[in-house]
């Protein structure tokens, strides 16, 4: 039986208007991805990595072409429906962590559950599980400023995981960490992948990309290569 594609991108273009010029950030990308894949997207800056990431993450919509997420055409979705997909189907991990500075780790992890309208008791249970999964259960009541870089990124990963999304999107997750801590974070991703999660990783470090199962290289808004590791 053919497994359903989780992500199906067909000839997607994204054109930004900068002054009088049109910038083709994505110039006709075609790409599919299945459940439980571990994919790394690589490319020099300006290659369209971030734009592709934003599109896949439903933070943005394509100018033309088709992007089907879980067999739903994203271009047809309203703002609120996009928000719902980001909430339920996608977990973001950012280079700069993007945690709320005045909230403790547990509350940061709880955020997606709050917007999903999940009752308090269940939220508490899920937050505990997610923090446990990234090894941060003992730092739950600490604010980001009281956590190390690695711990912050673990909190962010827990936040991405907590609502059991279809895909986790990590944009340079080790970019702000030293090599050793970065390696630890990659171990966490590995563990999550083994637990059955789908991961898309954006990086320009070859050794980080090696952790994945498939590497896509972008150049000038086009797929340059698509190789299995």
């Amino acid at each position, binding site marked *: 039986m053919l497994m359903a594609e989780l992500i199906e991108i067909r000839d997607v273009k994204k054109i930004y208007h900068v002054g009088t010029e049109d910038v083709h950030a994505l110039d006709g990308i075609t790409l599919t991805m299945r459940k439980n894949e571990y994919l790394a997207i690589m490319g020099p800056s300006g290659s369209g990595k971030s734009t592709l990431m*934003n599109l896949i993450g439903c*933070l943005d919509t394509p100018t033309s072409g088709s992007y089907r997420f879980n067999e739903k055409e994203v271009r047809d979705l309203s703002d*609120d429906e996009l928000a719902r997909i980001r909430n339920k189907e996608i977990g973001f991990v950012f280079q700069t962590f993007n945690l709320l500075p005045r909230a403790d780790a547990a509350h940061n992890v709880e955020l997606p559950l709050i917007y999903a309208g999940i009752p308090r008791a269940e939220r508490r249970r899920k937050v505990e599980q997610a923090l446990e999964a990234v090894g941060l259960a003992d730092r739950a009541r600490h604010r980001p400023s009281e956590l190390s870089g690695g711990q912050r990124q673990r909190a962010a990963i827990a936040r991405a995981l907590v609502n059991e999304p279809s895909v986790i999107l990590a944009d340079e997750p080790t970019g702000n960490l030293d090599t050793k801590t970065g390696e630890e974070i990659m171990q966490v991703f590995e563990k999550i992948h083994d637990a059955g999660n789908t991961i898309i990783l954006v990086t320009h470090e070859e050794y980080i990309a090696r952790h994945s199962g498939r590497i896509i290289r972008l150049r000038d808004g086009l797929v340059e290569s698509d190789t299995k590791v």
Partner: protein
Amino acid sequence: MQVSESLRIAVANLRAHKVRSLLTVLGTVIGVMSVITIVSIIEGMNSYVSERLLEEGSNTFYVDKFGLITDYEQYLDAMNRKDLTIDDARALERNATAIEVVGSISQSRSDVRYRSREVSNVDVMGVDEGYQPARGIEVEYGRFVSREDVVRRRAVCVLGADVKDKLFAGLDPMGKEVRVGRHTFRVIGVAEKKGSLLGMSQDSNVMMPLTAFHKAFGSRSPVSLVAKARDQESLELAQDEARSILRARRKVPFSKPDDFGIMSAETFMEIYKNFTSTAYLVTVGIAGLSLLVGGIVIMNIMIVSVTERTKEIGIRKAVGARRADIMFQFLIESLILSGSGGLIGVLVGVGIALLISNVTPLPAAIKGWAIIMGLLVACGVGGFFGIYPAARAAKMDPIVALRYE
């Protein structure tokens, strides 16, 4: 999103910026405060005044040759009118079916002395025998001015409680001779204490027969009449009767207006209400202005807050906050901001009202409706002026917001 989460965020943010929040809501505080204070005092005076007027007797009315005078021209005009007399009083008693009794009174001010003691600036009232029942004055001891006293122009007087206390201290004043101005009067009674009205004593007076008063102080001081209707229902009829009887006695032509004025407690109440409604309007105007300015300040600070928290908005949108969630969050925040300003305003306003009623003779009545209205208006201001900043936050592009540093 749950309301509790919005409240939690809002309170946490306001607490993180205590001084800024306080300064932001100052306009709202001042607006609500002034409304509460002034409403409390006006309402306090309203109930006080209407209570006292009722006490005065809601079935009495006053007649004099002036009526309600609003300018000097009218005053000069009225000065030329014929004086009212004791005979008018008797005629009203005789001919008006709805009138029970009529008193006459003429007033002046003078010093009152007994031996070496002196009370200055006392209300000296020349009255007839009808004045006591018409005004409902009780005599503490001795007796009131009688018809005999008036007819025989006896040099006797009834002391107000304050005057008696000051002149005689613990002594028995009965039969003693006091000097009122340059004239000597024998004390025949002491009136019961009436207390003070808006800080002014009602017991600093001396009452004497009207005839004796005119002899001593000159007959130029005009006489007014105090009439008591049989009961409250016949008050209007009594006034109508008094009007037609007086017009006949004073030979006012059919087409001319009254050359005298009739005033009841209601008339005074109306004048008073007119005055307070103006005060109300002024207050509402001032409060409205400060609330408007306060609202604009809130809007301004909320825009600043939204800009400062662009990143936070981006994060929240990335993890699935919908426009409505963000909108709601910032609206709740400005509501809480202005609502707490309203609350502070209510507390300060009530405090000031209580303070004023304690240290001045002005009474204060704290009204529940004023407090509720103050809070509602404050929240309304926050809600209204919070819409624009909240909408700005809600329609932010998550990508741009996330990139914001």
